[in-house]
């Protein structure tokens, strides 16, 4: 097995796109190839996260057409679907292919056009990654799932629900503040100065989660070029190393022991740490799956950055912001940057690479540049979890 490096990254503007998914993915891919200084003929396989292309554009098998669109030749091109974690599992498998020796250079990333679907239909299609046989007839939505998790969190830690809501609001405030500073974010220059009242008093979506507790629907794409570590220095002075990955699968909601402690996430993160031979204390930054404010708190605890029940207060105290214990979602996260679900994992990796190169936007850049970072991506209601640990130095 060979060690793997990321040598180029690309990322479209997130928000509403008039371009097709194929065009968006091409744009991100060409940026990544330019960034790496490679050409189409160098790419030996393509790994693409795309969750709902059939519903968005009536297009399945987008990976093959993406390879064709970029004129990459008749190379293997595969779509990965793990709901909102689609790109992360694509990147993880891409790294495996490079590591195995099967390929020397690959393109990996993801794309989605969810905003284009409109709220009602997008909510319907997103809910397809709930467990349909049991959750379908209930009319469960994603905000509904995380609202249930929030109530369980408050109950489990004996916290008044209003007190938890105020603490959750700090996730939205922080992520919107950083999203507003990120030129590629859906909410660039918007909502950068929210107050707790703005979050808790906005429209109720699924009690206790308001609209401002939720990430938006988004269009966008992100892509990366990966190659073996021994080749990386030929292309860049600043390769970022893939140190460890993990992946986990969950169940129907009713089979979960505790919505605030998803085993799929705990297990996946544990494997990623083990592979990277690192621990939470070694990690300098997180890009994690804040699809809802409560989701960020649950993730921080599952990954081991805070004790059970402590992430809410720690967030309110600024421990997850710049200068805090563990800067989290300095890109704006899903809440501030947007969440084109099939692209999100690649966007998380993109911003981690940018941070490690010292190229994140001012106000979002961690100083000194982070040495080690970790992504956390969640698909469905804890159905697919994936973690990627990156570093500026090899271990």
């Amino acid at each position: 097995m060979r060690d793997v490096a990321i040598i180029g990254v690309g990322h479209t503007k997130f928000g509403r796109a008039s371009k097709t998914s194929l065009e968006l993915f091409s744009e991100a891919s060409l940026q990544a190839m330019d960034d790496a200084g490679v050409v189409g003929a160098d790419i030996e396989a393509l790994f693409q996260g795309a969750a709902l292309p059939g519903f968005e554009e009536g297009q399945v098998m987008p990976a093959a057409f993406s390879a064709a669109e970029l004129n990459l030749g008749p190379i293997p091109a595969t779509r990965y679907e793990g709901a909102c974690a689609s790109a992360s599992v694509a990147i993880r498998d891409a790294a495996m292919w490079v590591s195995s020796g099967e390929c020397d250079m690959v393109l990996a990333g993801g794309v989605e056009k969810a905003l284009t679907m409109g709220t009602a239909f997008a909510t319907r299609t997103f809910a397809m990654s709930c467990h349909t046989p049991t959750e379908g007839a209930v009319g469960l939505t994603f905000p509904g799932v995380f609202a249930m998790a929030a109530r369980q969190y408050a109950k489990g830690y004996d916290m008044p629900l209003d007190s938890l809501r105020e603490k959750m609001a700090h996730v939205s405030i922080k992520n919107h503040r950083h999203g507003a500073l990120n030129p590629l974010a859906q909410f660039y220059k918007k909502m950068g100065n929210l107050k707790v009242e703005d979050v808790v008093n906005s429209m109720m979506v699924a009690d206790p989660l308001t609209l401002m507790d939720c990430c938006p629907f988004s269009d966008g794409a992100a892509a990366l070029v990966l190659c073996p570590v021994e080749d990386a220095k030929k292309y860049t002075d600043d390769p970022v190393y893939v140190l460890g990955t993990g992946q986990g699968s969950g169940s129907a909601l009713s089979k979960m022991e505790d919505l605030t402690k998803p085993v799929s996430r705990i297990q996946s993160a544990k494997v990623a740490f083990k592979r990277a031979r690192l621990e939470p204390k070694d990690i300098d930054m997180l890009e994690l799956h804040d699809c809802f404010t409560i989701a960020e708190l649950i993730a921080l605890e599952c990954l081991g950055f805070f004790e059970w029940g402590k992430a809410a207060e720690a967030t309110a105290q600024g421990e997850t912001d710049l200068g805090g214990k563990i800067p989290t979602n300095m890109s704006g996260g899903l809440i501030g940057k947007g969440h084109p679900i099939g692209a999100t994992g690649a966007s998380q990796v993109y911003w981690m690479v940018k941070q490690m190169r010292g190229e994140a936007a001012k106000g979002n850049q961690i100083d000194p540049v982070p040495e080690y970072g970790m992504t956390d991506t969640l698909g469905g209601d804890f159905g697919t979890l994936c973690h990627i640990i990156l570093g500026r130095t090899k271990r």
Partner: protein
Amino acid sequence: MVGKEQEEIEKELSKEYVALTYADYEDGLKGGKLLGLKCAACGGITCHPMPVCQWCCDRHLEKVELSGDGEVTTFTVIRVASEGFEDDVPYIPCLVKTKEGPCVIGRLDMEVESATQEVIGTQVKLDGISTYNGDKFFSGEHVCPVFKIVG
């Protein structure tokens, strides 16, 4: 001579791997019953149905009826529904830990104004079904259990 007799292949195909189907589960609910599976190996109850025991993975499962009694472990009030559920808003999905052990998902039948945090931990009982008429992605009529607070 290589190849297998058609009858032999058909016989292999006739083996049943599922003791209680989702359709059986929904039919049970329509008749006011919460159906599950009892494991011969560990004695645990699986509900909703699975081809293997949800506790120990054993495959010796027998159909049983659950009491329909349980405790609310969490819930929410949905105000923004997905397509097809607009007319139901507001509605209350809930998770109920049954007396027999497994958790089931359904809806809670109560006034939304009373659906406060104190509902978690209260005793509930199966009290009917909620019917979804399906859409082009999930065709046909589907039902889920509806629970009511006891007392």
